[in-house]
């Protein structure tokens, strides 16, 4: 599993296409011929990653928007980001 923390910068991988379906998000990775789904919270995180790239900023925005404990949010966010990195649909950016 990849290791990231809130200081990590993230970008969407090339050849990944996305489409909203209701409140959820479908991501198609053309290289792997696979698609993935994100629930509405995951879809919001994806949008924030696209906007900011900085996990720190994603974290702060989510903390403002959702009624959630800071520690829980950090843990859930990093778990999702690690899953997305392992799936190859996002990459760490220098």
């Amino acid at each position, binding site marked *: 599993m990849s290791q990231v923390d809130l200081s990590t910068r993230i970008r969407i991988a090339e050849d990944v296409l996305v489409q909203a*379906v209701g409140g959820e998000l479908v991501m198609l990775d053309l290289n792997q011929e696979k698609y993935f789904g994100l629930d509405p919270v995951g879809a919001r995180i994806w949008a924030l990653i696209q906007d900011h790239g900085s996990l720190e900023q994603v974290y702060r925005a989510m903390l403002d928007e959702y009624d959630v404990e800071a520690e829980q949010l950090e843990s859930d966010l990093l778990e999702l980001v690690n899953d997305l990195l392992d799936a190859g649909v996002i990459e760490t950016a220098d």
Partner: protein
Amino acid sequence: MARTALQDWLAALLRSETPGFPTDEDPGDLEQLVTAHGVGSLVHEALADNAVGREVPGHFRVWLKELAMAEAAAELARAEEIKGVLADLRRSGVEMLVIKGTALAYSLYPRPALRPRGDTDLWIRPADRQKVDQVLRKRGYETGLSAGGETAVRQLAYSLHTAKGIAHSLDVHWNLTDSPLLREAFSRDEAVHAALPVPALGEEILTLGHAHALLFACVHRIKHRHSPYYVGSKAQFEPDRLIWLYDLRLLAEALDEPGWRVVLDSAERGRVRAVVADGLAAARQLVGAEIPDWVMSTLTAPGVGEPSSRLLRSGHVGAFFADLASFKPADRVRYLRDVLFPPRAYMREKYANSRAPLAWLYLRRIISGVGKRISGNL
């Protein structure tokens, strides 16, 4: 497909009603029905906003969500290739109209994935066939052999399987439809004159105007009362396929009074008033299409007989003879020959495992074809 409580339930959902879930029915049948009617993504969206969603079995909702996700992913996979093909054809000077599902998906539906389809249909000038063939082959497309001669077959299917495992299919038509009774519903010149741009598919990409698209949708559904369409590998003869009726609903919503006048004039001139009336009545009844009463009364007013109306009443064999009768006597023999005796190369490919004489293979094909027509519907 016979109408069932499940089909009525699906149709009511598409009419934005809140129908009670028919709990006596097998939910497994529902998945088959949704697939056959091509309305999975539409039903997924309809349930999200409908209180009846709570009554629906959980596994059906999960299946539906996965289907909607898969259809969205398929659309993403297809979109770039479709736009690339259309741009190449346009650059090569091909005058084409994008018709049927792809055109409607990108011009009328809120998201293209809500309108699933197996291929993209283009209507070209007969004179552009060679040019189209060159462009598509250059992009790696291949085509099978034609199943009939010029009087019987007016389209050719192309397919491409990319290195990434994605399949793309194109149906290239040089007439409105194969059915001689329906193919004069309107001319290509009329269609081009009233064509509309589809910016979502690329610069200068055109489709039928709403009035002609509605006429064509009615003609197309009756064509499939007698010639099969395939869902997976299963042949279907169901004119009341809900996704086709939903197309009609959206097209009807897009028409203003002058647009309806075009529908009526074209239906009269093309002698397809009964075919159009039948399609609009079904769309009104099943998916709640709003059809002005004056349009329905004009379409159903007594008038001169229309040979195409036989396609509404006849079984498959009757429809075949109705099509045959629409030719001048001298051309009937050619039509029969083209339908019954496809080219030798096609027969050898179709029966690649048989070493029987060609005459026997033709006989086998005719018997099999008649068998299918009789077993489908007389």
